């Protein structure tokens, strides 16, 4: 707070006429020298506000057109019939998943047989019936697969011609704009009649129906006669396989209905473009078929790594804060506090390099250690994964959490502690029952700010997270934590250098930046709110 006499001080600029020291005052835009300085400093104070506004503005400026472009892309996807093909393709992919289920059973059976001391040739002989069955089951999809690949070519062709045409249009516009009429005339724009082109795709519906009916029959026949496994323990899994197939078959009528009613002229709304980004589960770029910009895989990756980092950093950071503030001797305090501050100065890129060069291998070696095989997810084979990145990020979050939590504990009024002691509580009781609850709001906000730090960290995740763009397979439970992931910060850093300026991919990255920006603001806001709401009034 400035001293209270500022008001009086301001008056010194205009001496009263009694003293009559007449001096021509330099004035800038009607302000005295002192006022000018004040305005100058005030303007500088405003810089922080301006920068925040500029960040918002420029992220929006580059990113906002994304949703329009994404809408166009989705519209083409529908107009050119790619969507239609994908509906059938989904059916094929579901079948592939079921085949994989069969393979999984076989793998388990082989493991089991080997454990029983059966050699490979014998195991193969015993599983021959099953293999035969699996092969027959796998073959049932062949007609559908043939149709899909046929349609894929047709749809790709339509899309390519459409895109070429669009490019011609743009080129023509550019020629016209720069006054080169002859060149513009030379470009022949052939507008595509989608409703006619699409017949090549939708026209196959009767054929599809025929194929589908036969396919359904084949499937039903296949699940009617399940083979008998040489390993009785696995038989329930086959029953489950039959169940899954029934569920799969039940989706057929809806799919047929979907295809029948499918219309390539159905409008693509803004909301669709928006939901494809916010809830889209695919981030797929530079693909020959269709590009998808769904943030979910990246968001989940960021979240998972942050969870790992906080899982490690919160106990360590808060524990250290309690120790340093309440338990440690003054000499220890003098040593530990600067040391942790020093750790916070280690640049993140150096930590990332350490992860690649040392920690990745070390953790993998640790996971393959026999004595630790009870840990879920161990042993694993990917050197760079969410766990590696999370461990390093913990080291980044610890100093933040430690410093802020220590501050919060330090701010607990001394009287609380003394009163507790006076009532006969032990040091332990005082810490657990009095100090920590009193400082809890500060600790929570410290954790939130640590989370913000971790979410926004780029270099460590870019180098160590494995950079695989896919939602981790959570069906395996907690072992998903050792899978490679990609993150929001990582994707910006990785792809920004390679994209075409102004393209949809480029804009998508800016929108990801916007999301990050708002997450950071939200976390900051929450942290402040918590501190203010639950602050203990002293006295």
């Amino acid at each position, binding site marked *: 707070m400035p001293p209270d006499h500022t008001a009086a001080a301001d008056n010194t600029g205009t001496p009263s006429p009694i003293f009559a020291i007449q001096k021509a005052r330099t004035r800038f835009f009607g302000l005295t020298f002192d006022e000018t300085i004040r305005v100058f400093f005030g303007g500088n104070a405003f810089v922080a506000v301006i920068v925040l506004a500029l960040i918002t503005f420029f992220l929006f400026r580059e990113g906002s057109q994304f949703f329009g472009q994404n809408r166009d892309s989705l519209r083409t996807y529908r107009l050119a019939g790619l969507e239609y093909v994908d509906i059938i393709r989904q059916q094929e992919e579901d079948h592939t998943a079921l085949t994989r289920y069969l393979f999984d059973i076989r793998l388990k059976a082989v493991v089991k047989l080997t454990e029983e001391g059966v050699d490979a040739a014998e195991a193969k002989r015993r599983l021959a019936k099953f293999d035969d069955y699996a092969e027959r089951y796998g073959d049932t999809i062949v007609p559908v697969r043939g149709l899909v690949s046929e349609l894929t070519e047709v749809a790709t062709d339509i899309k390519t011609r459409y895109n070429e045409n669009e490019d011609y249009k743009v080129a023509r516009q550019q020629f016209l704009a720069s006054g080169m009429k002859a060149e513009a005339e030379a470009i022949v724009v052939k507008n595509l009649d989608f409703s006619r082109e699409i017949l090549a795709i939708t026209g196959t519906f009767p054929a599809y129906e025929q194929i589908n009916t036969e396919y359904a029959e084949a499937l039903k026949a296949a699940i009617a006669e399940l083979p008998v496994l040489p390993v009785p323990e696995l038989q329930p899994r086959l029953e489950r396989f039959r169940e899954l197939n029934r569920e799969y078959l039940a989706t057929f009528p809806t799919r047929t209905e979907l295809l029948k009613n499918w219309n390539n002229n159905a409008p693509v709304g803004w909301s669709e473009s928006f939901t494809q980004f916010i809830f889209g589960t695919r981030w797929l770029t530079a693909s020959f078929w269709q590009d998808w910009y769904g943030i979910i895989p990246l968001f989940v990756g960021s979240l998972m790594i942050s969870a790992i980092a906080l899982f490690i950093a919160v106990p*360590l950071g808060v524990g250290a804060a309690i*120790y340093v503030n309440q338990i440690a001797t003054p000499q220890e305090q003098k040593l530990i506090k600067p040391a942790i501050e020093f750790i916070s100065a280690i640049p993140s890129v150096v930590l990332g390099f350490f992860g690649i060069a040392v920690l990745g291998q070390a953790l993998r070696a640790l996971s393959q250690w026999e004595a630790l095989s009870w840990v879920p997810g161990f042993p694993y084979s990917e050197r760079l994964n969410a766990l590696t990145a999370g461990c390093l990020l913990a080291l980044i979050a610890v100093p933040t959490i430690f410093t802020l939590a220590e501050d919060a504990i330090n701010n607990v009024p001394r009287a609380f502690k003394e009163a507790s002691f006076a009532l006969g509580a032990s040091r332990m009781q005082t810490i657990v029952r009095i100090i920590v609850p009193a400082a809890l709001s500060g600790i929570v906000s410290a954790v939130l700010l640590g989370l913000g730090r971790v979410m926004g960290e780029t270099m460590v995740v870019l180098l160590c997270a494995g950079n695989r763009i896919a939602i981790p397979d959570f069906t395996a439970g907690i072992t998903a934590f050792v899978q490679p992931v990609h993150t929001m910060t990582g994707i910006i850093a990785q792809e920004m250098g390679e994209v075409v300026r102004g393209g949809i991919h480029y804009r998508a990255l800016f929108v990801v930046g916007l999301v990050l920006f708002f997450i950071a603001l939200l976390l900051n806001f929450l942290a402040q709110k918590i501190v203010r709401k639950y602050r203990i009034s002293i006295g």
Partner: protein
Amino acid sequence: MEKSTFWVFRLATYLILIAGFSVFGDIVVKGSATVFGAFKTTSTFPYFTNTFLTEAPESLYVFEHKGEKREMGDREYRAFREKETAAALAAGQPAPQFKADSYVYSAGGIWPCIVGTVLLVVGSMTIALLLGVSSAIFLSEYARDGAFVRFVRLAILNLAGVPSIVFGLFGFGMFVIYFDWNVSLLAGWFTLAFMVLPVVITASEEALKAVPKGFREGSLALGATKWQTIRSNVLPYALPGILTSSILGIARVAGETAPIMFTAAYVVRDKLPWDVEKISDFFFQGVMALPYHIYVVSSKIPQNEYTARVQYGTAFVFLGIVALIAASSIVLRNKLRGRYKW
């Protein structure tokens, strides 16, 4: 019971320290071999040089020659090859065949990166200090508590939480594209300066507030104007505090990679920054920078014994610089706290 719980807390604390210093130790031990192994004697003053610190990055060639395994940097390798070929031709033998494995950036040194980092830090800290100190002077000397000040403080607090990659995107969108500065020193300076602004403002304000009220009151009572008071009675006493706390900002600026990735850093550049035709070109050129170089050598080239040297060496030099800055900040601040007691 109480003792054992305290031990758990103690363990947590020391675990942090061990983790931090094992990272530090690994890089120091492995990296110092590269740096200190690169000393060479020369014939001119000061009679030694360190090739790792004073040369530009080169490709490393590993090959076998006359049954002997040799490693050479790009220039040395070419000269060697020419010499050997000429010698062989002179002796009337067929030219020797060279089959070399090459590893980019793995020979030579990191001089351009050091220069680039220093330039980035100096430029951005100058901007940040000018803006930040003025801002702090307003907040602590002029402003009265009100909606405006609260708004400004909120903005500063939020700015501090913005991820560095978002600053990078912003700098790219505003300076590189909108202002059309391209990938340049100037764009990097402003991006980094804005990033570090909250640190500088907070540090400066703290230092200004540490100057006792009496100093201002005395000056004002003698008839000095507000500005005269600040200039002669507040700033001189706050300056050491401002500078030492701002050193932490320097460590942050030097250590960040994400903001300069798209705004100022080049993967490789042959010319040194002062090698420009006109002065204005100086500001609009990209530079190599240590953090970005670490990123490049650790992600874009394979990990093996030949590349590990330059990786660890670069990381060691970089960590050394940053640690030195941070340590001096911590030490100076502790000293200062002891010196000024009003």
